[in-house]
């Protein structure tokens, strides 16, 4: 009888990461900019998306993948805004995974999509571990959640490119310092681009949608130059 040690060094999520890489290639081939929205339940993801698509759908071709543990309520809310929406019901799953997203993309015409929003399941922990092939993660935090959330749930803030602070209309009613909350988020990730928004009053939405449109434009320009430089 002999004992042996085997160095495995395998990522636990290697199969999932590989599928995410395939999704990313598919999106890039079609020139789609994809945003994965992550937050606690009730932070205002769906409401922000409703306002965002209204502001952007005239100028860009949009699509949404809306994840929920149960029901297709969010997808139905977004469908009323007359854009293509695919619903994913995770049936108890605490996050979206690449397999679900890959399947739901079959229902969208990616060749006719400029900007894709993926509303993840409401959960500030689990979704941050799973790559969905998105161009970037955006983390939302509402002003009612307390300033210390970035310190308590650093993974989501560390991996995000953008922080959207939501429900700023409520600040006058709360003992909440937006500056302090943003400072905590930047302590974890100093590179975060931050937008302070209210989907009720519209504060900050022009900045947020303008920034998104800029990202789409950069992607299109890079893709265009890449193609013309080709053989």
């Amino acid at each position, binding site marked *: 009888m002999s004992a*042996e040690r085997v160095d495995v060094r395998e990522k636990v999520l290697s199969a999932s990461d590989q599928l995410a890489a395939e999704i990313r290639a598919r999106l890039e081939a079609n020139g789609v900019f994809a945003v994965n929205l992550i937050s606690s339940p009730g932070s205002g993801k769906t409401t922000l998306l409703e306002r965002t698509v209204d502001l952007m759908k005239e100028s860009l071709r949009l699509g949404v993948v809306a994840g929920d543990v149960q029901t297709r309520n969010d997808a139905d809310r977004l469908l009323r805004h007359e854009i293509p929406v695919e619903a994913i019901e995770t049936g108890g799953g605490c996050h979206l995974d690449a397999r679900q997203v890959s399947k739901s993309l079959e229902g969208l015409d990616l060749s006719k999509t400029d900007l894709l929003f993926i509303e993840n399941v409401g959960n500030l922990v689990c979704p941050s571990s799973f790559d969905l092939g998105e161009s970037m993660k955006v983390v939302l935090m509402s002003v009612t959640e307390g300033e210390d959330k970035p310190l308590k749930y650093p993974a989501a803030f560390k991996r995000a490119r953008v922080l959207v602070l939501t429900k700023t209309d409520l600040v006058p009613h709360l003992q909440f310092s937006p500056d302090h909350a943003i400072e905590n988020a930047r302590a974890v990730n100093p590179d975060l681009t931050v937008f302070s928004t209210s989907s009720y009053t519209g504060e900050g939405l022009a900045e947020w949608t303008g920034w998104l449109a800029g990202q789409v434009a950069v992607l299109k320009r890079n893709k265009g130059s890449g193609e013309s430089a080709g053989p």
Partner: protein
Amino acid sequence: MHEMSLALEIKAICERELAKLPESRLTALGVEVGAFSGVEVETLQFCLEVVMSEGFDGFRCEVVRQPGTAACLSCGLEFQVTQAPFECPRCGALARGVSGGDSLHVSYIEVECE
């Protein structure tokens, strides 16, 4: 949370590795979990016990937490961190940002050949 599905993935990796080594029995499993991976070490350990109890027994399970690295803005010291905020152990100033600590790996297995 999702630690149960991670435990199942880890079990699948063990099974794949053991399939390459016929006539052998798993005696140890090493997993590395980043402090900023969004995964709870204790929960994962518990889920691994549950999941692995079917098919494997009598092995040692070592789940280690991999820290991240922060750099002090004031004195430049680089130090290891496992939770935010990142206070410099030398001068007490706060560091902004952390690198690493994202790992989620099966690092090794040990087997006994019969």
